[in-house]
């Protein structure tokens, strides 16, 4: 990176091409933008709103379970609350959160290119997401759904209006919402694959990609190969309910277990759509705050691809008690265990990265370390569920609920919020208050563990999931869990306040606040519309701290713990050079 080509940049508009991408004002400048960073920010705002909405549903669910019997509302309302929590969190928040939000903003910058390969397609995918969200909102206004986010047949497909036995709620708009949002996810995947393959800056070999880029690439492959299957499954489900097709409903000659195969063929890989990008974020944060290349770079990159591929072979483990043959059950159990290998490889390499590093515990690093710890628990409890005998007992209990929250929240959300902290200065140009950030992190970390450890225990003691009411012996666990959820909610509230305060009156961010050697920190903060003032050429890898120059690492570096390192001042020579140009 020590050299930059003299290829003239190409800019169509008359505005100063080196002005920050945030320069242009006005709603329309956002709504018709082709700039991946602006599209990414709109995604971030959308998924944050979805997260708050899903979070409110979660808090209501927990509050209702605080006492036995009715606490706040009746059983039907409760069923809608947990269903909407799942639908909103999975389809509106988690799946687009890191890839379409943070990924959209950072991928082209990390690749040293001006934009994604298909900027119009990128904007289209955002509009498709919004269009899908409108369907979801329509369903909620119409009373919501009470089917769970999995829409199991025949409960979701058999309409009582036509003499069926299933749910009488507004299912069709919600399945259509998920169907439509699937295409948004697919288009993002197509875009990212073409971008990673064809748009890399000169010198940016595959071996020099950031691990976040590798993770997004692996995620895109899953999005391309799994999402269309979900799309067609939900369409079949919609038609089943609408026309009485008879594919999934036994009363019409269909098979409800077939739906589960279809559904999990997508939704298990979808788990990796959710977690792999989080792993990418964490790999980058660990590298920056340990100031060294992640140990086993190729192993981490390859394990992302390994997870992407293995993800397609293990859907059957959701059906261990649903009525598969013993043979199929055995094969799926064995394949499920294979997932532990790439996951373990990642954890070991992350821990090894810290060894002999130069570790700074700033807030992004706190989230990344929490990720490693919580994901380890989430992954190991996954082994419980992969063990056939144990799964028979734990299936569909709170143990499963706690397990996947450890992966989805302990993993993906920690990665998402950590990434938000990490790249926030770069794309907003503002710093945030480290103190508030730490308080927020602490509350979330404690609240999360209190909420879900209680659920592990009640789950292994036999408490089934999706229960409005429960036996007295589970009361204490439910109460601890609910109190945990309040701490968790408070933590996210603190973070929300912190980010809003940063936007309103945060200190201007320097170019490279964390002292990272990666490409995105070498461009101005916030970056110009086309990301770089000059097209970058890479002469070293993005984690090669020993090859990076002091100015690359420390210009604008402002670690509050170590004011002595560079003190946030640009070197004098540099300032003089700029003066000459001006």
């Amino acid at each position, binding site marked *: 990176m020590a050299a930059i080509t003299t290829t003239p940049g190409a800019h169509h508009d008359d505005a100063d091409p080196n002005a920050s991408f945030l320069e242009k004002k006005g709603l329309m400048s956002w709504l018709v933008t082709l700039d991946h960073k602006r599209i990414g920010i709109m995604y971030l705002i959308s998924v944050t709103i979805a997260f708050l909405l899903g979070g409110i549903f979660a808090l209501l669910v927990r509050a209702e379970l605080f006492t036995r019997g009715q606490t706040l509302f009746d059983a039907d309302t409760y069923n809608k609350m947990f269903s909407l929590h799942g639908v909103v969190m999975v389809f509106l928040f988690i799946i687009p959160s890191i890839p379409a939000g943070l990924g959209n903003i950072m991928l082209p910058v990390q690749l040293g290119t001006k934009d994604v390969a298909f900027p119009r397609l990128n904007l289209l995918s955002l509009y498709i997401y919004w269009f899908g969200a409108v369907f979801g909102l329509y369903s909620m206004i119409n009373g919501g759904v009470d089917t769970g986010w999995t829409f199991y047949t025949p409960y979701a497909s058999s309409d009582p209006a036509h003499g069926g036995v299933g749910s009488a709620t507004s299912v069709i708009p919600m399945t259509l919402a998920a169907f439509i949002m699937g295409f948004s996810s697919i288009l993002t995947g197509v875009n990212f694959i073409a971008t990673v393959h064809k748009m890399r800056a000169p010198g940016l070999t595959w071996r020099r990609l950031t691990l976040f880029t590798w993770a997004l690439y692996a995620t895109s492959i899953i999005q391309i190969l799994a999402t269309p299957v979900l799309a067609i499954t939900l369409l079949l489900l919609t038609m089943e309910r609408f026309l009485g097709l008879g594919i999934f409903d036994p009363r019409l000659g269909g098979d409800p277990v077939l739906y589960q195969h279809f559904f999990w063929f997508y939704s298990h890989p979808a788990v990796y759509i959710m977690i792999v990008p989080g792993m990418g974020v964490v790999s980058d944060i660990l590298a920056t705050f340990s100031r060294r290349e992640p140990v086993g770079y190729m192993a981490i990159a390859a394990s992302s691809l390994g997870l992407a591929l293995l993800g397609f072979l293990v859907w059957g483990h959701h059906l261990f008690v649903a009525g598969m043959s013993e043979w199929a059950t055995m094969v799926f159990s064995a394949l499920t265990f294979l997932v532990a290998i790439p996951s373990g490889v990642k954890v070991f390499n992350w*821990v090894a990265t810290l060894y002999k590093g130069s570790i700074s515990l700033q807030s992004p690093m706190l989230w990344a370390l929490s990720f490693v710890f919580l994901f*380890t628990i989430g992954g190991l*409890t996954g082994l419980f569920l992969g063990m056939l005998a144990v799964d028979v007992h734990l299936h569909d209990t709170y143990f499963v609920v706690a397990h996947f929250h450890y992966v989805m929240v302990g993993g993906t959300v920690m990665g998402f919020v950590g990434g938000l902290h990490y790249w926030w200065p770069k794309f907003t140009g503002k710093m945030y208050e480290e103190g508030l950030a730490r308080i927020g992190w602490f509350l979330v970390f404690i609240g999360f563990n209190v909420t879900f450890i209680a659920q592990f225990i009640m789950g292994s003691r036999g408490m089934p999931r999706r229960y409005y009411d429960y036996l007295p012996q589970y009361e204490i666990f439910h109460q601890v869990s609910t109190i945990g959820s309040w701490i968790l909610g408070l933590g996210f509230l603190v973070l929300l306040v912190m980010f809003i305060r940063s936007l309103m009156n945060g200190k201007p961010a320097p170019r490279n606040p964390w002292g990272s050697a990666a490409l995105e920190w070498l461009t101005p903060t916030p970056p110009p519309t086309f990301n770089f003032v000059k097209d970058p050429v890479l002469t070293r890898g993005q984690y090669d701290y020993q090859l990076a120059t002091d100015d690359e690492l420390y210009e604008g570096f402002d670690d509050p713990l170590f004011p002595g390192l560079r003190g946030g001042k640009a070197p004098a020579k540099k300032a003089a050079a700029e003066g000459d140009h001006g």
Partner: protein
Amino acid sequence: MLLFQPVESDSFQLPPSMADTAPPIDKAYDFIFWFSVVFTVAVTAALLYFVAKYKRKPGVKPEPTGHFMKLELFWTITPTIFIFFLFHAGFTGYIRNATAAEGATEIRVRGKKWSWEFEYPTGDREPGELTLELGRPYKMILSSEDVIHSFFIPEFRMKRDAVPGQYSFIQFTPTKAGDAHVFCAEYCGTSHSGMIATVKILPPAEYKEWEKKLGGCSGTPEECEPAKWGERLFVKNGCTTCHGAGGSGEISGSKTVGPKLAGVFGHEVQTTAGVVQADENYLRESILRPNAKIVAGYATVQMPPFVMKDAQLDAVIAYLKSLK
């Protein structure tokens, strides 16, 4: 509605073990639990130690990352060996529990929204309560009359989905006398959490006593007055999940999915088949063929038909007549 007593626990993590299927699963559970504890502690300790030891210090540069091929191979291959053992432990326990003992007693289990019904080899049907003989091998034949349910007894560590349109099986031998619960573990609608049945495991002598009275009323003569027995049948059949306690038509102030039953006897009822007089025959028909005449405004959720002996029907009707 949840009238069950708390079960005293054996261990903190798992409910008491009450059938032969539990020990193999508990063994596998313990194995993976301690494996996970060791692993988590090791990773966390390393994490914290490195963070403390290699804290950033001015002037101290990090060591450049080298290549550790042997290390990478080591931590790829070692877990591969571990997971082989984990798979084996899980699979053997599963297969052991998937095989029925010779001459197992077959009990039909029917799930319906939102109650369990058990049919014994004698042809007698008991809703809401499964009575088993200690030490006798059982095979449950599960089916569902509407949506997917899941038959789950935590004390036996056994679970299997009851899928409409097919049969599924589960087998066990109770090893400890006492009470346990059947939960529905697959979400099935409004009163999914009310779809609970009691499991009574009786020593052989007591079981013989119980078997004699199967289908009839068990209890003191006062408890077997038709209306009193009918009330018990009403609760056991799960009627309260849709009609409220005492047929009040409401649960905690909100309207139930089924119509109010208290005080309906002797009055005219507006139904989908016109206005009818609520007499004994109407009540009988509404239990046996609930969808023949649906009370106006209650057509969205359909009540499953209930099969009862005449004596039981008489008792339930007597109870309904007594409700004011």
